[in-house]
């Protein structure tokens, strides 16, 4: 196989050289990544200013639960990627199941996140209790809103898959791109809030 053929068989790039899904969705990915990057920069700046207070407040977080949440979302990313592969192979029943699995993992993540918020608030760590918690609730809350929109996006995938007349590969790939983006934001939030000490 030649190098050119290798490029054409790359699963991440179409034959005409375009990225998966609508090119327009990648505008959202880039723009929203810049917005989140600015939030992260603000967090890191204030963390550097008040390192001791941030470390103290950070110790209230449950790292194992954060790891479980990360595994849930990464698994959901794997499931939606498999869903796209099944759609490309015209195995729509299997794709439907994988989209449902993705939604289930998203719900499980959200359940863990809610449980974590309730535990923290119960222990007195609220939105206003410290600067770290202000950033924690803000970043995880913004991510949760993106995730809720992700459920609407998964609904679009299931709606597309339900009827042979509607099955647009491009729309399904576009929706999965959104889901991967939300997962990527979580990985960065997890690294910044839970791991960086």
């Amino acid at each position, binding site marked *: 196989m030649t190098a050119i053929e290798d490029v054409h068989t790359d699963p991440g790039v179409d034959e005409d*050289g*375009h990225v998966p899904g*609508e*090119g*327009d*969705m*990648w*505008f*959202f990915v880039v*723009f*929203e990544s810049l*917005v989140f990057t*600015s*939030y992260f920069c*603000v967090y890191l700046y*204030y963390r550097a200013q008040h390192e001791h207070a941030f470390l103290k407040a950070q110790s209230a977080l449950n790292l194992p639960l954060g790891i479980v949440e990360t595994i849930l979302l990464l698994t959901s990313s794997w499931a939606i990627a498999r869903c796209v592969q099944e759609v490309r192979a015209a195995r729509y029943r299997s794709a439907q199941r994988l989209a449902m699995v993705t939604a289930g993992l998203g719900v499980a993540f959200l359940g863990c996140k809610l449980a974590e918020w309730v535990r923290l608030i119960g222990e007195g760590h609220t*939105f*206003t209790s410290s*600067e770290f918690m*202000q*950033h924690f609730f*803000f970043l995880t809350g*913004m991510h949760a*809103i*993106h995730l809720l*929109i992700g459920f609407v996006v998964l609904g679009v995938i299931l709606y597309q898959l339900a009827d042979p007349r509607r099955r647009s590969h491009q729309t399904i790939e576009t929706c999965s791109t959104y889901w991967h983006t939300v997962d990527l934001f979580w990985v960065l939030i997890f690294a910044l809030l839970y791991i960086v000490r």
Partner: protein
Amino acid sequence: MSIGASLRTDPKRELWFVWYSTVAFYSLYSVVFFVLTRTQPPGRPWLTPEQTVGWFADRHWGLLVGFALIFVLGGFSATSIALITYSIRRMSVSRAYAYSYLILYAIAAIPGFLFICVAMTVGAMRPERDPTLMHWLYDFGFLSFSGTMGVFLVGSLVWMAAILLDKNGVFPRWFGYLNLCNALTEVVIAPSWIFQRGVLAWNGVIAWWIDVAVFGMYTVVFIYLLRSLIQRDDLGTGPVPALPPAAAPRAHPLAKVLAG
């Protein structure tokens, strides 16, 4: 063709009038809020009553003259809402989207735009007023302006949904997604009701500076795209045609990047 003849015969003259009015309104808005009244960037939320008296005194004539201009010309804010409503009517989607947008923005403009003008003018009118009352007007002005931005959120989502569902190609789809980005930043301002200091207060780095950067880009982009729509519009009901290459405006650098 003379300008007079062009004005008499150009079927798009009303659309161009509304578009230029929109540009004029946003220019006036920026000058009044950032230069004349200096109410943007917003004042510090942690000022004491006595300090707010000083804040009003420092801007006395700016507030009175600047907001007098808004009370005379602020009605031009209706032009941008009308033009956006027209753009949604030009789409293949239900008229319900256009009317939802129109009603939402017409209502949201009262707390999100006019309340601050009234509160700050009242404060500037009688500088000898009780500092506690001046403090109340200061809080009311900034909270009504910044804290009610969430009302605009649904409007952005309505516009986004209309663009993504449209089959007439009125706007590029990436602009639909930009509406989502803008709507999400409207959420960020909500905590300003809780915080008097920090990044989420009404003058905070996240709640104000990053939001304004996003909103500024969004505004420039939608004014540019509305101009492009008027240029392409055939005043029909089907797909909006592309401009012929010779008449096409210079491609936006962002469009070139997205076209790959």
